[in-house]
């Protein structure tokens, strides 16, 4: 069976070039970067070279970037680290209702510790109201955390405008750019962002590596205390192979970005147009334009998402319903519910997230098999009868 992968927002394959780049650091160059002897010297250099590559992707200075073990760790480090560092200044944090669990769970944890958190609503397009954001800021506000691109819908938030507001009010601004990095151009120098989280396995690097941009002068309380690594900002022997891989992945993302954006946009348009033509009663979720080039979140009325996914999987197609990280849960997507979708529509959504290797043929295959699958599942649905 042909295997087609439309779940790049869950994770991406490791590119061959990336794999090749990391192999030497698993085979011959396995030294500890902190060692002063021959075994350590090469790996220290490799780590710093990789750091420069990732910095190029974000346009920041090497001193402003630390490596983490995941996007989730980065989000925790940024949010808790800032909250603890500034707790004497205030205890109020502003975020949105549609953040990734890495941000939401962290904020919920901080609430237990006495921090107050405002979760901004989103409109039907999945966007926040900047006036509401402004109104939410109080003298006690120390941090705004708004994601760059939503993982479920691909909706892009106005990061530059939010940064401007944060700057005017002298509030620190963190953005979870895990889904944006590598997919669209990011320039922290232009954005008034103080903290930005990214993750390796969403940009064709391996799992278990991420990075956090920490603008010069931003003080964070570390969440992993230990040795002097990462200039005392994160203890622990560096994941050298992972870091090198992330550097390579960042370099490739930069190199191929324009071409990829074009490629993905064409595929996505074909998918959405084709689906609308072939399957009645569907709804593409999220703002029509302000979305990542690769993400299509579609609700299929009257049917439940997981059963669609199982049907797709039986035909070799990998997609997801809600975020991969919550797919073990039965809750409807908090993102779609926040956008005002009914529970049925939220449960009936499928996220197609495209990537480098996807082709027009694959999209066409999906468009061919989807109508009968949806039709069959609808014929089994007690909700459908009434609608016909």
């Amino acid at each position: 069976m042909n295997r087609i992968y439309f779940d790049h927002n869950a994770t991406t394959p490791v590119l061959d070039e990336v794999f090749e780049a990391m192999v030497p650091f698993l085979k011959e160059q396995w030294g500890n970067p902190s060692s002063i002897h021959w075994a350590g010297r090469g790996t220290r250099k490799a780590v710093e070279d990789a750091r420069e590559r990732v910095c190029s992707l974000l346009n920041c200075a090497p001193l402003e970037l630390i490596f983490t073990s995941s996007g989730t760790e980065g989000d925790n480090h940024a949010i808790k680290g800032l909250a603890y560092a500034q707790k004497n200044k205030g205890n109020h944090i502003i975020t949105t209702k549609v953040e990734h669990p890495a941000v939401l769970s962290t904020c919920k944890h901080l609430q237990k510790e006495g921090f107050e958190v405002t979760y901004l609503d989103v409109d039907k397009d999945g966007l926040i109201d900047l006036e509401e954001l402004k109104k939410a800021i109080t003298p006690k506000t120390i941090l705004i955390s708004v994601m760059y691109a939503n993982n479920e819908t691909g909706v892009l938030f106005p990061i530059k405008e939010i940064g401007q507001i944060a700057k005017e009010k002298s509030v620190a601004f963190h953005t979870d750019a895990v889904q944006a990095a590598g997919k669209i151009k990011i320039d922290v120098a232009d954005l008034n962002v103080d903290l930005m989280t990214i993750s390796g396995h969403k940009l064709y690097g391996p799992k278990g590596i991420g990075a956090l941009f920490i603008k010069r002068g931003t003080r964070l309380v570390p969440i992993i205390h230990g040795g002097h690594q990462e200039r005392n900002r994160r203890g622990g022997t560096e994941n050298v192979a992972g870091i090198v891989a992330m550097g390579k992945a960042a370099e490739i993302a930069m190199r191929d970005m324009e071409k990829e954006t074009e490629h993905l946009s064409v595929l996505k348009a074909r998918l959405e147009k084709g689906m609308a033509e072939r399957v009645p009663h569907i709804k593409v979720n999220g703002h029509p334009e302000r979305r990542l080039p690769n993400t299509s979140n579609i609700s299929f009325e009257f049917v439940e998402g997981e059963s669609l996914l199982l049907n797709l999987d039986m035909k070799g197609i990998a997609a997801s319903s809600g975020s991969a990280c919550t797919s073990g849960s039965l809750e409807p997507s908090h993102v779609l519910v926040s956008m005002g979708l009914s529970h049925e529509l939220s449960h009936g959504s499928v996220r197609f997230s495209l990537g480098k290797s996807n082709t027009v043929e694959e999209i066409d295959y999906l468009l061919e098999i989807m109508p009968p699958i949806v039709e069959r599942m609808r014929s089994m649905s007690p909700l459908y009868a009434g609608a016909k």
Partner: protein
Amino acid sequence: MYSEKVMDHFSNPRNVGELEKPSGTGMVGNPACGDIMKLTIQVEEGVVKDVKFKTFGCGAAIATSSMVTELVKGKNLDEAEKISNSTVAEALDGLPPVKMHCSNLAADALHAAIEDYKKKLAEEAAAK
């Protein structure tokens, strides 16, 4: 994630549909949970002669619905009432832990349908 039996019942569900003139109808679940099941039964001389289901829900929801229709067909009402959600899950060689609750309510739908049938019987008797 799912057992082979679950996948079998999911891909080839038994007794899909709705009886035209059911003796009883059971509808359980709710959209928040993501699972809604509708079961219609045909009872003749105290025996479940026919049964059909319609389900909005995940793989587990559909498979349990299908399985409960197989289990109940031909059983008398006493036996049918003894079928529980765990009977169904066991007959499917188990369900993932996360699916044990919300999506495992096919037996509930069956019991609701039997109740509905009994209520109708009682009403008919009262009307006579």
